[in-house]
């Protein structure tokens, strides 16, 4: 019988490794009872549940979470993976998209150039407090998890942050516009440090361009930033309504593949690295934990995102001035994982 066709987007980052693993292993994951079969490499896959084909996936690569949000808005995709803040801003603007589940936690690093004078987090913190000029810290997108975690942590530690040139502060945040620019930013010395998602910290270290100062989940206060939200799986409301079973199957696939990845770290890293075209050694260093479970801590973290995005004036629509509790209903749909 005809099965529905669903368009899925993901990004070339190890954060989305489970999906890439599902696509590269295909029938190799048959034991899970839910797997993909390749139709066109990297572009088209059939989704099987218990030996039965339930959907055809058309796979699209996006460049960033915000682009994923735009693709949703323009109805060019049905399912997508991207950062939580990107989905929040989309929802704020009225794009009918719901967050179905997390995809991973952690996997964000603070990196300095390899010739940087700072050898540890404490030295770096010292420098932040004592330097007479702002320290330049880069990030790849204003609504990305790395930036928000970093800025919140700075706030918690009484370190002043600015984005305006020439304004006096301890940290001057530089928008590097794309993860592509993270590594070159180190070699050209345009920033003193940056915060970025895996695999870029590992890549930078592997290629000798920088050193990883710390994993952001270890930022003080201890525990606050672990299992913090980053990328999520989201779907358009229309798709949820029309193809609920397919969405359910997809979420199940991600849940199962996530645990496979956690259990087979080495192999998963190798597959993911091969998919993106980065050295496997770099990917293997990742500290990322894959999960589709929206834990307590995760939801608290989502609340932090809300607050910061609102404070930054990123909300222009229905989310403006709201707290997570007010919008949770519309934003989340965890029915597929619970």
């Amino acid at each position, binding site marked *: 019988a005809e099965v529905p066709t669903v*368009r899925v987007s993901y990004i070339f980052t190890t954060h989305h490794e489970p999906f890439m693993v599902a696509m590269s292993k295909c029938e190799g994951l048959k034991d899970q009872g839910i797997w993909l079969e390749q*139709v066109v490499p990297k572009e088209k896959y059939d989704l099987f549940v218990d030996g039965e084909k339930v959907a055809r996936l058309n796979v699209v*690569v996006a460049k960033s979470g915000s682009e994923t949000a*735009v693709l949703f808005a323009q109805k*060019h995709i049905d399912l997508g993976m991207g950062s939580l803040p990107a989905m929040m801003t989309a929802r704020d603007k009225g794009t009918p998209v719901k967050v179905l589940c997390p995809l991973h936690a952690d996997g964000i690093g603070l990196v300095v150039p390899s010739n940087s004078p700072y050898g540890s987090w404490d030295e770096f913190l010292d420098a932040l407090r004592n330097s007479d000029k702002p320290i330049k810290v880069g990030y790849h997108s204003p609504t990305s998890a790395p930036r928000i975690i970093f800025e919140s942590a700075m706030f918690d530690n009484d370190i002043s942050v600015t984005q305006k040139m020439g304004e006096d502060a301890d940290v001057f945040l530089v928008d590097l516009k794309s993860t592509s620019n993270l590594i*070159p930013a180190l*070699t050209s010395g345009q920033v003193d440090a940056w915060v970025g998602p895996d695999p870029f910290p590992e890549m930078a270290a592997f*290629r000798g361009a920088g050193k990883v100062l710390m994993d952001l989940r270890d930022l003080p206060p201890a525990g606050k930033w672990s299992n913090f939200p980053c990328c999520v799986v989201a779907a358009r409301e229309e798709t949820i309504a029309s193809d609920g079973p397919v969405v359910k199957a997809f979420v199940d696939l991600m849940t199962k593949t996530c645990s496979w990845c956690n259990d087979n770290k080495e192999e998963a890293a190798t597959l993911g690295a091969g998919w993106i*075209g980065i050295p496997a050694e770099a990917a293997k260093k990742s500290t990322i934990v894959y999960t589709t479970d929206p834990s307590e801590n995760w939801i608290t973290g989502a609340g932090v995102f809300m607050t910061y995005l609102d404070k930054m004036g990123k909300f222009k629509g229905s989310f403006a001035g709201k707290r997570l509790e007010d919008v949770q209903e519309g934003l989340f749909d965890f029915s597929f994982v619970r």
Partner: protein
Amino acid sequence: MIRSGGALFAPMVVPFIFLVLWNVVAVQVGNDLILPGLREVGTLLFHPGTDVISMGSMAGNVAVSLVRVLVGYSLAVVVAIPLGLIMGASKRIYGLLNMFLGLFRPIPPLAWVPLVLAWFGVASFATLVGIEEGQWYIWLNNLKLSMLFIIFIGAFYPVLSNTIYGVSNVPKILVESSRVLGASERDLFVKVLLPAAAPSIVTGMRVGLGVAWMCLVSAEMLPGSLSGVGYLITHAYTVARTDVVVAGMVSIGLVGAFMDWGFRVVEARCFGWQRLSR
């Protein structure tokens, strides 16, 4: 003899110095994220068939780009030449359309990218034709509508302008002397205007292909694209493989130069009469 030998090699001197300098600086810098050595780039270029950063081979990516450019470009040529012929021959139609077409001319093809993405997204020729599987799908799906649109816009105006120019600059004397010999309106078109404008049209086609190829580099930065030499260099940049970036640039340059050379050969072969009859 010695003198002509010198004249032959003189043009090589500066490029040679440049290559040596490149290598010296690359060794000095010692950071192939900033400047890869001559050897790394050379290796990539001389083994165009091997897989690069999981993105397929250099040759394969160049081939994909070429197919894209040629399809978008052919569309532009097929639309622009007849339109140009008509606009060049009829002052009324020219008056009607020129201003309208002129509205879009100053918008750089790349500025269309965001809008075109909103329109077409990742739809491709495959979507249009309805082919969903197999080898054909793989080829057709590389022809994203958004990319074709950008290439189309890039190639359209040079071809159009040159066609109009060519037709409207056919010496009146050629038209009149043919009419006196008994040419009908149709004869004038086929036997006088078209051949007389051909050199200008071909020049427009050459320029248009150059612009189209240039637009490709950016068009391949569009989402949904998983291949093409433009995509290859941006992705290589992302994973900090500057040697692949430079090899990609060289490939782009070589292909561009080669296409231009091809057209110039055609121009020189077929339109000697144009250059030589002052």
